């Protein structure tokens, strides 16, 4: 049956159904009470970048090559390469800062990194009380272990490990006659 004003009444029935239903059907309420309950994020969710090290923090994969600094669209990365007394580069960063107030979580740094060193973390709770210094993350805080990487993104980390291992084996085969390289910064697959 159709009569003038039926649309208005239909609307009322819809809202009343929602109102009453929200008290009886639990799956209607999609609100998550955030600090107490959390949604488990998908594995490939991403928040801010971090640096992977193998074993101990001094064996970081990063070589301080500054590719990510150059590629970063909002230019939130600042890197100074470490050098010894004679000015020879040590293939590791002395300063590695990421301004997470500027970072837009685009993952381009991860894409361009040739050493699989910089990866996306999924820890999004980065709010701080200050606007400037507190939001500048320095090298010690950026470094996370490979185990942590395995924990947050198992599939991706396994793939990366396999790739690095293959690369190392290839390199080892190629350099079978000369002595193995003495540099400690070569990624270990351990």
């Amino acid at each position, binding site marked *: 049956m159709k009569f*003038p*004003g039926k*649309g208005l009444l239909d609307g*009322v029935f819809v809202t009343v159904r*929602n*109102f009453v239903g929200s008290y009886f059907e639990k799956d*209607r*309420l999609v609100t998550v009470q955030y600090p107490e309950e959390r949604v488990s994020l998908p594995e490939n969710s991403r928040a801010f970048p971090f640096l992977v090290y193998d074993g101990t923090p001094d064996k970081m994969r990063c070589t301080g090559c500054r590719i990510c600094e150059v590629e970063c669209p909002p230019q939130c990365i600042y890197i100074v390469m470490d050098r010894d007394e004679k000015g020879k580069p040590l293939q590791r960063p002395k300063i590695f800062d990421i301004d997470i107030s500027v970072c837009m979580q685009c993952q381009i740094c991860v894409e361009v990194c040739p050493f699989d060193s910089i990866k996306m973390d999924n820890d999004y709770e980065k709010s701080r009380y200050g606007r400037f210094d507190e939001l500048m993350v320095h090298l010690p805080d950026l470094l996370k272990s490979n185990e942590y990487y395995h924990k947050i993104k198992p599939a991706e980390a396994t793939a990366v490990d396999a790739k690095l291992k293959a690369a190392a084996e290839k390199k080892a085969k190629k350099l079978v006659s000369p002595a193995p390289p003495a540099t400690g910064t070569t990624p270990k697959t351990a």
Partner: protein
Amino acid sequence: METLYQLLISIKTDPSVGRWLGFAPDWGLRAVAIVVSVVLILAVFLTLFAFLTWVERKTLGRIQNRLGPNRVGPIGLFQPIADGLKILLKEDIIPRGADALCHFLAPVLFLTVSLMLFAVLPIGRGLIAVDLNIGILFVFAVGAASVLALFMGGWASRNKFSLLGAMRSVAQIVSYEVPTVLAAVVVLMAVSAAGKQGVGSLSTVSIVEAQAGGQMNASGWFIFQPWGLVGFILFFIGTLAESARTPFDLPEAESEIVAGYHTEYSGFKFALFQMGEYLVMIAMSGFTVTMFLGGYLGPGVDMPRIGWLLSIFWFLAKLSIMIFLVILARGTWPRVRVDQLMGFAWKLLLPMALVNIVAFGFWFYLGSGARGWFASATVLVVAFALLTRGGASTRLGKRTYRYSN
């Protein structure tokens, strides 16, 4: 107030407890009665207002399958206190070029006018601040006066959005007052029909008492008659329009004119405007209950000792239902356009209100029994069908713009 005064007088003249009040003069007791009733009204309805903001947000949340405020206090009950504190701490800004005096006076005047409505609202049996013999007329007079307070605020802000909102609100309230008053006329006619020798009254208490009797004190409510139902709907729509609630919140349509007449208000003055709007809403819902839903009547109000307590309970219960309907309307219907607003008032509501009076005549002269019931229902249904042309006018035509084309 009168009940309280009589109570004080009876205590004074009572020999056993009279020595406590014996020294007090009668005018002193009257002053005490006035002050107590005013303070009671302020306390009850301002608390109700604070609570209502929470209820509204909760209800709207549930309608949208959300939880609503639930952080401050148990299930968010202290949210109004937090809101109040926040708004009190805000800076009070008077725009440069604004008319400072009018800008200051407008919210005060608006709140005063809204509070005046509660003076004639019967909350329970014998519980009314002043039983004016012009009761309902007083309500409409006060409602008419509130328009100017809104205009004052909008004009004094010297902001085009404020002025637009103020003019919209003036036009809207003036337009919707006509069908609202006419819907009330039917009630007054019914009161006159129920009174002895056809003597009617405008007093709100007599309107309630005219609906007394019948089963459980409920079958005499005007809403159960066809003209009463139509009058209720018309009055309810008028209430929504006069308190500028969705779907008639054009005076403060945020998507068009920022916030309407209180765009330039902040801090405490803004709070006064909000308070006034909610109080108008509560009061008008209360008058709807008074006029169509039997006011404080309900099962058990005639009982000797606890009757008045039950009457308060029934009034508040009905008031809550009305307020829930208002919130439901806000949660359901989208805002109308300005031309729809005016067309709705003048082309549908006004003729329906006039037909409603005729329908009451049918009901009255056909013996106010089942025959009259069906006759007036038929008149109303036919009139509604004719006015809406069988639903043809619900399909909106293409809008033509007079100046831009």
